[in-house]
């Protein structure tokens, strides 16, 4: 007779990999033998996790089709058994898995769609950060511009995409016929974010993508200008930086200002 802890490991091993050590611990039922009864758990495990992935990656399912989606889901379940109490996180590693697994990595569109959909999932229920009001920026004294960092909304994520996955995703969401998957020669930067309860996404020009990247570490206006010098004439840089900043604030991408001096004082 197995101890309590061993029995649980044995039953889990049957569910995860079909190891039969638990069989001697299980009795036949009135209508089904022990193995048939154990299979209820093993089958249910697979189906439940496939269902979770389907809910988190609906456009990937349409893109891959039923058979390939089932195949990639089962491969992912085998490679990444859930370690999360909350099923919401089970699909976390699917984008990396599809990019790295030999059976799927050649179809790069799969990993791209997974990356895009997971970014949406993260934006969906992340922290309710505040959104900076443009008036707060307008009231900033001139000398403060060199000492304030702009805080990006925590829902903001950048995704590099070569395929037309946003258009495909949008069509699936609207129950329309999706476009034929098409790949551009070069990957473009996209961003996904949430304003209030609505999720948005749009593509980024290379200068804007670089400037936003600078902000991800908590950059200030001078840093944005410095980055933009690689694309614009020095005389145009402050105007361009200001226009970008205003757009980001209008879109709800900036959650607040951090005053570097007071932050340092606070740390003392």
């Amino acid at each position: 007779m197995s101890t309590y802890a061993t029995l649980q490991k044995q039953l889990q091993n049957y569910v995860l990999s079909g190891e039969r050590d638990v069989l001697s611990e299980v009795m036949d039922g009135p209508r089904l033998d022990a193995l048939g009864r154990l299979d209820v758990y093993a089958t249910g495990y697979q189906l439940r996790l496939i269902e979770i992935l389907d809910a988190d990656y609906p456009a990937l399912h349409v893109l891959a089709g039923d058979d390939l989606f089932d195949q990639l889901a089962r491969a992912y379940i085998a490679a990444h058994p859930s370690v999360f109490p909350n099923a919401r996180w089970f699909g976390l590693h699917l984008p990396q898995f599809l990019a790295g697994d030999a059976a799927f990595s050649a179809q790069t569109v799969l990993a791209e769609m997974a990356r895009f959909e997971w970014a949406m999932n993260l934006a969906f229920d992340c922290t309710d950060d505040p959104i900076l009001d443009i008036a707060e920026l307008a009231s900033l004294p001139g000398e403060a511009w060199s000492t304030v960092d702009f805080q990006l909304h925590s829902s903001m994520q950048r995704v590099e995409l070569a395929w037309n996955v946003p258009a495909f995703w949008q069509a699936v969401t609207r129950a329309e016929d999706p476009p034929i998957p098409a790949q551009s020669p070069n990957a473009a930067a996209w961003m996904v974010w949430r304003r209030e309860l609505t999720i948005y996404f749009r593509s980024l020009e290379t200068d804007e993508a670089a400037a936003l990247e600078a902000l991800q570490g908590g950059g200030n206006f001078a840093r944005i200008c410095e980055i933009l010098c690689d694309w614009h004439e020095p005389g145009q840089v402050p105007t361009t930086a200001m226009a970008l900043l205003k757009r980001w604030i209008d879109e709800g991408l900036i959650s607040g200002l951090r005053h570097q001096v007071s932050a340092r004082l606070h740390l003392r």
Partner: protein
Amino acid sequence: MPSKLNSSSNLGFGLGLRTTHYDAILETRPALDWFEIISENYMVDGGRPLANLTRIRRDYPMAMHGVSLSIGSSEPLNADYLRGLKKLADRIEPAIISDHLCWTGVAGKNLHDLMPIPYTEDAVTHVVDRVRQVQDFLGCQILLENVSSYITFAQSEMSEWEFLRTIAERADCHILLDINNIFVSAFNHGFDPIKYVEGIPTDRVRQFHLAGHDNRGDIIIDTHDASVIAPVWALYAIACKRFGPVSTMIERDDNIPPLEELLVELGQARQIATEATMKMQ
């Protein structure tokens, strides 16, 4: 000693809160008494789930029903999970906090299923100690639910209802009696479901679950994807007679119909419970 909170009061007749019904609930404020949430669905940082929950909570009492406490696991309780559960409870002030008498994974893995426990004295001792820890941490009594099960362990020393009763009494927790799960397990294990109901102490039951299932001939799977069937209603009537008015809800997790359809089904529960408890008087 954990507080009794208000789980001793009868909340009436409720439904599981499901995302497909958000709009209908917010627009029509349907006539039902309370909602039960799956706790984990709202153990997130923000966004639409918590925003909708907060709005609906203003109009309805709530029960928090978890699926990942893993009270029967042979491994230590998950402190992060418990902190998340308490944070949500502090936010929505539920009338009831419940989870299942089961385990969900060991060795750092989670099967996202309600795995069965052998009905032994050792398991009773183990689970009782953990229920006390959870109740001390949350500061209230919890309800433990009987699960549908598909296997029988050779080492079990007592019936499932003796196991559930003993744990509830020793840990001083309450019971969420799932009438459908009794029916499902009775079929799968070949016991008398009425004997099960009669084996549960009348002073511990604080909530009933009702649901549909999938009868495959040689086994019944607890799928929550169909209406409650007549024999489960009959067992519910027996339970109502034994336990009196108890908070009742219908679980529907798949093949979810429009809200109006579930409200009609809930009306059936209300009618059966009313008739059964009238006969008691």
